[in-house]
Every structure is written in structure tokens, then in C-alpha cells.
């Protein structure tokens, strides 16, 4: 399957099933477009006609280009056949390994962000903190169900996990005390709103957490519109100095400044640039997750503007990198030479199978976005997964699960997309959240364009 597009002056051809990327000129772009549906004579005739005023486009030249395309096809870099569907089904059916948990250590929050998908940390339920005993059992469950997997991930999530910080520290200590005997390597992430960050948090997080996700929406007025305390006061002035101090002392370890954009700030690149100008260099900015009727929900009218924003972002990133002032954007971090294998690309996000969320009471859910929806409860950390029928539903999610995805060029980049987004948009985890697909495809086009631009610079 081939996807062709023009962006920022580049003509780009993606061979999606091999992962190959080609930067081509106008003539080759047109020839590739015609290659599968036309004879060589037809291509020659049409190209010579279209480029009649271009003296360098000769019959020999066009034939040489066709030969180059044939050579790429024969070497598996163009028009590669999609033969992976059965791999996706077999791989997931044969895997019963859990490798990642999202630990909801606190279903409560010291901010009261009105757009919060988790209803201000409570997930539409009671406020609660996870006990050490429950957390410990979650680790034991993970170790016992992880098979021979060495790398295990645990995200301390909420609500606001720093409201249960002592338990987080004890759980990390427990995990470190048992990982070697089980031949495991724990990688921890802390996702925080920053309010309770102090030197103790900074020192511990920078030592133990492989990744820290720091929530900030960008410009002060944008951040403070939603990210307020319970008295309605904006959080920007409180959290930005704390985030700066944490990042300064992070010593190069991974972190993300992670924002959410809504209908209110469709010009979200200005928020990304603001975070970069504050000195933060690892950035992520996500579309809001909310019901379509909410006043801040993204609209159809927003879609073309958002796509334009992603282009603006990509171009600015190229520009800033050249001047030594570059930054990364999560969705543009595509590793073309050492990225994921085909199994990773076709088997989906792993929610409900290799990835689960754990509530403060030890209940298991397919992921953090299903927490509180009792029909998706999987079991608990003591009994394990008892509702196999729910797990099997998630096991069926992969890049081929939806008929709409079969002919989509982006399926090996999105792996079938987010089950929660599909559920919220369509009522089914196997539905298609088309709005999200449009944004996703634009981001991949931009990410690949940046790689092409970098390669052209070399």
C-alpha cells in the first residue's frame, strides 16, 4: 500500500507495509501515482505530454525512472503487499502476558479542571487513595502474569498521584526489592499536575521514574482557564516554577510537558511554542477527550484549522532545530530506523490484555479511560482477570479489526487506534473515531515530512 502527499515543498511517498519513505520529484511522484494502473507506454505518453515544457524530461529519463520504481518494488520498498492480518490475530491470541499497569493511586485531586475526563479525579465514583497493600498486590499480580517479559511498566496515575506520595515511594521501594529475583526491570512513570512538587518529589522522581509527565496547557491564560484549584484560581504561577526546577535537576532523563487543547485554543501551537520558550524541550499536546456536546469540544469547523496547526508546528520545529533551539513533540517522534516491529504495529495498544488500569480498590480495567464503567471491569488484582469475555473483546482490537481501516495507509502507524476514543465516539470499542483518525494521519504526515527534511539537509 502506497500513500503519496505533498507537504512543505516535499513530495513524499510512503510504502506503508515496508515502512519505506521516498522523497521524490514531481515527475517521479506522477509516475508512481500511475504505475499500478497504466502500461509503461501510457505512463510515458502522459508524462511527456504533461511535462512538454520541461526539456530535461525525456523519454529515456522517464523510462529510467520507471525502471527505478520497478527495482524498488522488487527489493520490497514500494508497493509491498499487506500480508500481516493473520499475524495480528495469532499474536494476540497466543499472548497472555501483562506488561504494564496504570496504577490509580489517588482518585482525588487538588485541582478541579472542568475538562477532566476523570471527573476531577473521581472517575464518577468516590474519592479514595490506594493502600500500600493493594498497590503491593498489583505489583505481585503484574510480576506473576508477566511471563518471561523483563521490562515492566508502571505509571503512577490519578487523580493526582502526589496526594498519595508516601504510598508511591513505598511501592517503588517494594518493586525494586523484588525485581532482580524475578528477573524484571521496572520502568516507572509519574503523571502529575505539579501542585505538590517539592524537593523530595524532585529527588525521588528524578532517581526512580524513567519518565515524568507534567501537565501544563501552555499559555497562562489558556492553562488557567481549565486548570484551576477548587477555589477557581489558576495553577500556572504555582506549577511552572516547580516544573522548571524538576526538569533542571532531571539530568537528561525523559519527561514530557503534556497539555490538552480544546475548542477554546484551536491555535494550540502557540501553547507549544510557549512551553518551548519557557525552556521545556520534550512536549506533548493532546486533543481534549469529552462528549461532543461539551462547549469546549472540538468541532468539525475546527478540523481544518487543527490540521494547519500541525503543519505550522512541523515547520517551526524544523526552523528551530536549525538554529540550535529545537524541541521534540511526542507525536512527531518517529524512529524510522529503529522503530517498532510489525507485531507492535498491528496488535493495537494492548489495553485489556497486556496493559490494564488498577483502581484504588484493586479493580482491573482495560485502561485508565474505562475506569468507573462497570461493564468493562475485568476483575481485581487478587483474583486476576475473571471476566474473560470482556478481555476477549479487547483482544480482538488490532489494526485489521475495523473494515474502515483495511485500506487505510496509516493503520501500521496507529495500530488500529485508541479503543477508548472509539468507544466514546461510536459506542463500540471496534468503532472508528474518524475525527481522531484525521488528526492522527495529519500528524504522521508531518512527522515523516520532518524526517525527509532532515535527510534532505544531509
Amino acid at each position, binding site marked *: 500500500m502506497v500513500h503519496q502527499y505533498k507537504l512543505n515543498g516535499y513530495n513524499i511517498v510512503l510504502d506503508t507495509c515496508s*515502512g*519505506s519513505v521516498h522523497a521524490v*520529484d514531481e*515527475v517521479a511522484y506522477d509516475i508512481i501515482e500511475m504505475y499500478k494502473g497504466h502500461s509503461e507506454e501510457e505512463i510515458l505518453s502522459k508524462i511527456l505530454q504533461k511535462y512538454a515544457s520541461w526539456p530535461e524530461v525525456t523519454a529515456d529519463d522517464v523510462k529510467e*525512472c520507471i525502471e527505478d520504481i520497478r527495482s524498488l518494488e522488487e527489493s520490497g520498498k514500494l508497493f509491498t503487499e499487506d500480508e500481516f492480518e493473520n*499475524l495480528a490475530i495469532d499474536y494476540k491470541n497466543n499472548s497472555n502476558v501483562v*506488561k504494564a499497569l496504570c496504577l490509580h493511586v489517588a482518585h482525588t485531586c487538588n485541582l478541579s479542571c472542568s475538562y477532566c475526563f476523570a471527573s476531577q479525579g473521581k472517575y464518577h465514583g468516590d474519592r479514595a487513595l490506594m493502600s500500600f497493600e493493594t498497590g503491593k498486590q498489583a505489583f505481585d499480580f503484574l510480576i506473576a502474569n508477566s511471563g518471561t517479559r523483563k521490562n515492566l511498566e508502571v505509571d503512577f496515575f490519578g487523580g493526582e498521584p502526589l496526594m498519595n506520595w508516601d504510598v508511591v515511594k513505598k511501592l517503588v521501594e517494594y518493586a525494586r526489592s523484588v525485581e532482580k529475583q524475578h528477573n524484571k526491570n521496572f520502568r516507572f512513570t509519574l503523571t502529575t499536575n505539579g501542585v505538590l512538587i517539592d524537593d523530595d518529589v524532585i529527588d525521588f522522581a528524578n532517581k526512580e521514574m524513567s*519518565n515524568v509527565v507534567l501537565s501544563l496547557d501552555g499559555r497562562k491564560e489558556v492553562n488557567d482557564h481549565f486548570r484551576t484549584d477548587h477555589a477557581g484560581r489558576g495553577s500556572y504561577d504555582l506549577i511552572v516554577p516547580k516544573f522548571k526546577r524538576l526538569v533542571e535537576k532531571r539530568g537528561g532523563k525523559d519527561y514530557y510537558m503534556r497539555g490538552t487543547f480544546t475548542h477554546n485554543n484551536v491555535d494550540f501551537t502557540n501553547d507549544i511554542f510557549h512551553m518551548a520558550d519557557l525552556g521545556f524541550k520534550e512536549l506533548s499536546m493532546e486533543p481534549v477527550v469529552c462528549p461532543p456536546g461539551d462547549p469546549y469540544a472540538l468541532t468539525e469547523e475546527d478540523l481544518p484549522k487543527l490540521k494547519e496547526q500541525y503543519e505550522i508546528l512541523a515547520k517551526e520545529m524544523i526552523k528551530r532545530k536549525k538554529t540550535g533551539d529545537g524541541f521534540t513533540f511526542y507525536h512527531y517522534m518517529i524512529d524510522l530506523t529503529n522503530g517498532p516491529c510489525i507485531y507492535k504495529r498491528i496488535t493495537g*495498544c494492548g*489495553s485489556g490484555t497486556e496493559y490494564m488500569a488498577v483502581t484504588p480498590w484493586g479493580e482491573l480495567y482495560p485502561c485508565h479511560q474505562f475506569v468507573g464503567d462497570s461493564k468493562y471491569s475485568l476483575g481485581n488484582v487478587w483474583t486476576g482477570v475473571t471476566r474473560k469475555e470482556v478481555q476477549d473483546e479487547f483482544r480482538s482490537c488490532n489494526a485489521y479489526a475495523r473494515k474502515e481501516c483495511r485500506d487505510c495507509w496509516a493503520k501500521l502507524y496507529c495500530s488500529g487506534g485508541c479503543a477508548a476514543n472509539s468507544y466514546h465516539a461510536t459506542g463500540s470499542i471496534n468503532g472508528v473515531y474518524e475525527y481522531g483518525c484525521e488528526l492522527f494521519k495529519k500528524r504522521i504526515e508531518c512527522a515523516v515530512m520532518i524526517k525527509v527534511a532532515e535527510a534532505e539537509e544531509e
Partner: protein
Amino acid sequence: MSRIKTIETKNVANTAKKGGCGECQTSCQSACKTSCGVANQKCENKNNK
């Protein structure tokens, strides 16, 4: 003259023979928590380079 420049990439199709160790990061876990994609994903299989 060559009108096509091929950027260096890993051949994804070839990884079908050797891949699937599962040691890589869970897609959603790293930063976004709202989408599933290959961004920020590195292969951890030393036999699959």
C-alpha cells in the same frame, strides 16, 4: 538522473520473521494517554535491528 531519494528506514515487513518479543513500551503509557501510535516507540529486540 535519479528522481527518487529513499530515506533510510527499517524494513518493517522483514521484522515479521524475527519480531514480537514484546519488550517495548506500551504505546499509550508514555505521554499521551489518549491515542495509540508508534510515536516515541523504540524496538527493544536486539535480534531485530
